Structures are given as structure tokens and as C-alpha cells.
């Protein structure tokens, strides 16, 4: 991320370490992950130790320190989804794309993630592909949803 853009994000939230979480969220929103160099620069600009930034970046599940894929497939692992078979959906993506949760395919096409619950339990099991919710999933439906990615 270039320095000017980082400055803008910091200014939008206020140059105060209390706003670190919000600043990191904005960086990730733009870059899709938290680049190491940007975090170093941020530490300098806010005059906080890099370790504090890393403590936040590794504590909260929504941050990624690794570059993520072009598409993000998120499988909800909430209780309602779990009892309706969510783990088998994760297995299916793992099998078909050869990645584990948190992993990205070698061609940087797809990242598989899990989330604790998105609160759309009536639709469980639920898969979110690039922000779009797909409810009441089973293996056949998931295959249909992921089909276009394979052809890309």
C-alpha cells in the first residue's frame, strides 16, 4: 500500500493507537490482507511497537497476514450450520481445491476460510462466496457454486 493511502486511512480514524483495530480493518479491506511492509510503516507513523500491531493482527480472526486469493469462499461453522453438515462442505472444498481453511490455491485463485457464525442460521449450512450468501447447501449445490471458478 502506498504511503499516501496509508496516511489517508490513519487520518480518517485519528492518529491514535486506540484506533489501530479500525485502521487495520481498512488496510485489509483495501489490500485483501495485511502486508508486512505496511504494518511496519504503520508502527512508525503511530509510534507503537510493531509487536503490538502483530498482537492485534494475529489475535483477531478476521485478519490475514498472507495474501489471499482473488475469490474468497467462507464456510460458516456456527452451531446451526454444524448440525446441518457444514464440516462436510469444508471437506469438499479441501478435496476439490487442495487447500485447508486459511489456505490459498497456488494460482491465487481461491482462499478457503471458515467463520464462527454469520447469524443467518435459517439458511444453514451456509457458504459465502465473495460476499454472496448461498444457503441450504449440500455437496451438489456447492459444486454448482464453485463450478465457474474452476473454469476461470
Amino acid at each position, binding site marked *: 500500500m502506498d504511503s499516501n493511502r496509508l496516511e489517508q486511512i490513519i487520518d480518517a480514524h485519528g492518529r*491514535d*493507537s*486506540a*484506533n*489501530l*483495530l*479500525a485502521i*487495520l*480493518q481498512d488496510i485489509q479491506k483495501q489490500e485483501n490482507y495485511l502486508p508486512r511492509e505496511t504494518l511496519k510503516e504503520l508502527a512508525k507513523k503511530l509510534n507503537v511497537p510493531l509487536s*503490538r500491531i502483530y*498482537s*492485534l493482527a494475529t*489475535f*483477531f*480472526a*478476521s*485478519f490475514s497476514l498472507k495474501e489471499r486469493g482473488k475469490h474468497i469462499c467462507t464456510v460458516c*461453522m*456456527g*452451531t*446451526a*450450520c*454444524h*448440525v*446441518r*453438515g457444514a464440516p*462436510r462442505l469444508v*471437506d*469438499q472444498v479441501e*478435496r*476439490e481445491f487442495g487447500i485447508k481453511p486459511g489456505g490459498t490455491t497456488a494460482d491465487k485463485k481461491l482462499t478457503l476460510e471458515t*467463520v*464462527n*457464525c*454469520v*447469524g*443467518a*442460521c*435459517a*439458511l*444453514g449450512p*451456509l457458504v459465502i462466496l465473495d460476499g454472496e*450468501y448461498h*444457503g441450504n447447501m*449440500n*455437496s*451438489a449445490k456447492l*459444486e454448482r457454486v464453485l463450478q465457474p471458478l474452476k473454469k476461470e
Partner: protein
Amino acid sequence: MSSKLKNAADLEAYRKRVAEKSRPSGKVVAICAGTGCCAYGALKLAPAFREELKKHGLQDKVMVRQTGCHGFCERGPLVVIQPEDTLYQRVKIQDIPEIVEKTLAGGEVIERLLYHDAGGQAYTKESEVPFYKHQMRLILAHNGHIDPTSIDDYIAVGGYAALGKVLSSMKPEQVIKMIKASGLRGRGGGGFPAGVKWESCRAAKSEDGVRYIICNGDEGDPGAFMDRSVMEGNPHSVIEGMIIGAWAIAHPGKPAGYIYVRNEYPLAVERLGIALKQARELGLLGENILGSGLNFDIKINKGGGAFVCGESTALMASIEGFVGEPRAKHIHTVESGLWNKPTNLNNVETWANVPLIIERGVEWYTSIGTGDVRDNPWGGSKGTKIFSLVGKVQNTGLVEVPMGVTLRHIIFNIGGGIIGGKRFKAVQTGGPSGGCLPESLLDMPVDFDELTKAGSMMGSGGMIVMDESTCMVDVARYFTHFLADESCGKCVSCREGLKQLSLILQRICDGQGRPQDLELMESLSETIREASLCALGQTATNPLDSTLRYFREEYIEHIEQKKCRAGVCKSLIRFRILADKCTGCMLCAKKCPQQCISGEKKKPHVIDQSKCIHCGVCRDVCNFDAVVVE
């Protein structure tokens, strides 16, 4: 833009104006725009309705309104036609021409879009549908009627009247006394009396007068979405509660407010943001609110996806820009919380209860619920509670009932019982900190104290129904694994203990359990409970303990007979194709990722058990229910 309201009388005059304006002369099409219905495509419906209405020249006679969550998520997208109260469910874009022509223009009901119960009976009115009929909707009362992005809609139905009353005619102490007398207890799970908390926070010493008012919207319990729906569907009710709280707790000092919302709830963040802006524009937030001298504003903080941040001290650490690690509470947060100032934190639903209590009075509020709170704020559970009823139940959705109704009433009368005629096994309440309750406890009244006695807890209100195809050992493994993952790592007992429990449970699910494992887990559980600092660790073994207490035989079967009666634990099951049901369509053979299903066309197929990985794809794709688990 509207100018600022100067006092309570100004607010009432404004209400009259907007009430007249927003009172529809004709019909209203109320479309649910909650997360659930949006996922089914509800957002496309409103523009399509408007366009279709124009074709019939009805655009000025029928109002199209996107509302908050109606709660009956199972049947979304939901559309209610008012004033007739006709409920259409699973409405698709292609149904719209027919709805406009027949129902809105012709006054005719379309039978196929109505809700039909399991017995095939159709219901026309929303209020008659069993899912709604047996509820008592107070907090959710306006969710299906108002547009959450319009402060005028909220004011038109009586919103901010409680605030007007408080600021113009009540002293802070009187408000606290009232909340205390109402018996309102914290809806986030702990059940701590809100009035007692407010009183302590007001009494705490603050050199510069700063006191923080926080709303906990970090609804981290998987399977729970009550708070999300309130924030999305009626954000002003939460904000109004917080402003009243600021007056009662901090006036004439310097109150400052925060709403901490989960990162996973983008729509709630958006709607709260709009609501705060509108409240500022009308002068309901900011300086000298309604001429009372109260200065108060609220900021939204987005969480980062950590379950432990629902814990009050962890949440405050997170607002300060640190990792969400809880601290010991020998000094309470009401005395020294956020930035070491007196801090009052309540949950979303608790705040939303406040305006109701002020407006309708203590006597009315205490007539709902259990016990007697006149001399003891812990003496009962008053008011209603919203539950998110999910899992293997027919009618998934949000359910608001008076405290004290039975689990059976919620699951069977409102929820319509179990999906697919299967047998009820357990209901899990209270999220990862709660427990699994068996059939024998179905007639237990649901309130804070009864649930705790049974080894579970109210939690924030998740209610996950499980049937005979749910494995209780797997459920315990799921929650324990979840908590081991979400433990912040500060206390050894929680960090290491949960990890070990998780490993033992995994071993049992894998068919490697040892006879002494149950005792070992019980002893570990006691240590974790006793030696952990915060509620996460102290309640982390509830799922394990409650399943061991009520479903011990399933553990013994897993360990001794290597059997999972629910057919869930992969190492203990096998898939088989029933020869008499298989039509030889070859679909399963084609889809099997291991290619271990063989058979000729139109002849029964067979699974090669040595290669099968128990993925279940064959069962999913079979159109003839020929694949069974054993």
C-alpha cells in the same frame, strides 16, 4: 435536512407531523430486508414492486417499504401486505406481477404464496400463523413495520417518546430506581440486574465526570442472531435506551457512548451508522439534547472476530486498541472500566428494553415473566426474551416470548417441532457457554435461574434444536474445539485444559476412546472451571458436562462399542446402498470423489468400503433415499 429539536414539546410536534406524513392512506407492502431474507434475494423485490405498481397506476396508492427482520427466516423472503396483514412467504421476483394484479389491485389472496403448516393448513394473516401467534413481540414489535433507515418511521410509532419523558420530567435517580424496580436483567447472558449496575456506575467516583456507556453488540455465540436483528431492524430503539442510560448514569457529568459490533455484521454497522447520523441531525445526540443540558454522542467500534470480546473487560481492551484479553474483575468495570473510567456496559437487547419500561411502567413490565423482584432484583426474570430458534426445527427464526414459558412451547408450538418427523434429542441453549438439555427437561420454564440450575444458561438467547441424527459427543467436541480456539490464552487452565479436552473428545469421535477418558475429562473440567479468570473459561465445560450428565450412554457407546448412533462420527460409520431402493441411475457413482461406487446402469450399485472416505456425497445426490448410514 430537519432542524434540531429543542425540547420534548418540539419532539411531540415533530411526531405529529411525521405520523401524519408516514401514515399510509392506502396499502403497504412490507418487505423483510434482514440478513436472512436479503440472502434469498429480498433486496430485488422492492424495485420490482415499484415498477409493477407503476404499470397499474398504483404507485401513489400503495407504499413499498423495506423493513427490519420479521423473524420467520425459514420462509424468506417475507412480504406482508398491510392493513390486511396478509403474509406471503418465499416470494420470488416472478410472483410480483400476480401479487400486484390479484392482491393489491383486486383484493384477492393468492393461496400458493401463503404459509402452510405441516398438516397442509393455510394461514392468511401473519398474526394467525402459529410461529407468530404464540409469541409476545415487544422488542421486535416494530421490526416488520418500520424502515430501519428512517428515524421518522421510528418517531411516528412512538419512538424517542420515552427519552422525551425522561429528559423533561425525570431525575437521573428516578430513572435508575425505575429500571431497578422493573427487574430488568442483562440479556447478554449473565442476567445481572441492569438497575443495580447503573446505580453502582453512577455512584462510582470519576474525577473529571467522564463515564462510558457501552452497548455490547459482539454477538459471538454461534447460532444466535437476536442482537443482529435488533440492530438491523430497529437501531433507534437501542440508541434511545443508551441515551436514557447516559442521563441516568452520568448526568450532569460527561457521558460518552460506544457500540461494539461484530465485524461479521456489516448490515448492522451500516444501519446503526445511518441511525446515529439521523439522531444527530435531529439533536437527539450531541449537545444539550432536547434542552436538558445532556451532552452525549455514540461511536461505533467494529470487532475483529474474537468470541472472547463479548466479555466486558476484553471488549473494553479491544476498544482501547489492544488485544481482547479479559482482566480480573476485583475492581468492577462500573468503577474502573474503559480507560479506567466508570463504565456501564449492557447488551443490545437490554438497551432496547429500556424505552419500553419507561413508557409503559414498572407495573406492566413486572406483570410479564417469573418470580418476584420487589425486594430482590435477582428474585425473578421479568419481561420478554428473544431467542434464535435454529437447528433441526421446522420454523427457524427469531422468537420473542415472555420469560417463564416452557422449552416445549418454544420448540413445538412456535417452532413446529422437528424437521422431517424425526425425534427430538436435545436443545442447546446459551451458546458455547451453555449446555444441552434432554427431552425430560422440555417442560422446564425458561428463565435465567432455571436454565442455570439445569446446567445450561440463558446466554444471549441462542437455542439450537438437535434431533436423533445429531451426535452429542460430536456436539461436545465441536464446542470444546471452538472454545479452545477462542480462548485468549491468558490462563493456563483454559488454554491448555480445553486443548486437552478437545484432543480427548476427538479421540473418542475417532473411535480411539479409552474407558478412563470420561473420568479424566470430568476432573479436567473441574480444574478449568475453578482456575479460569473469566466467564469463557469458567463456563467452557458446560457443553461437555451437560452432555456427560444427560447423554452419557452415547459416550460409552463410542468408547466401548465403537458406535455412533447418530451416524455422524466419520470413523465409526459406513455408507451403504439399499439394493431395493437403488434404481441404478449412476449419479452417485459419477459424483463419488473416490470413484469407489460401482454397478451397471439400472442395477443396484455397491460402495467399496475399503476406499470410501465417508464424505456423504452419494447420500446428498441420491434422489431415491437409497444411501443409508450405519
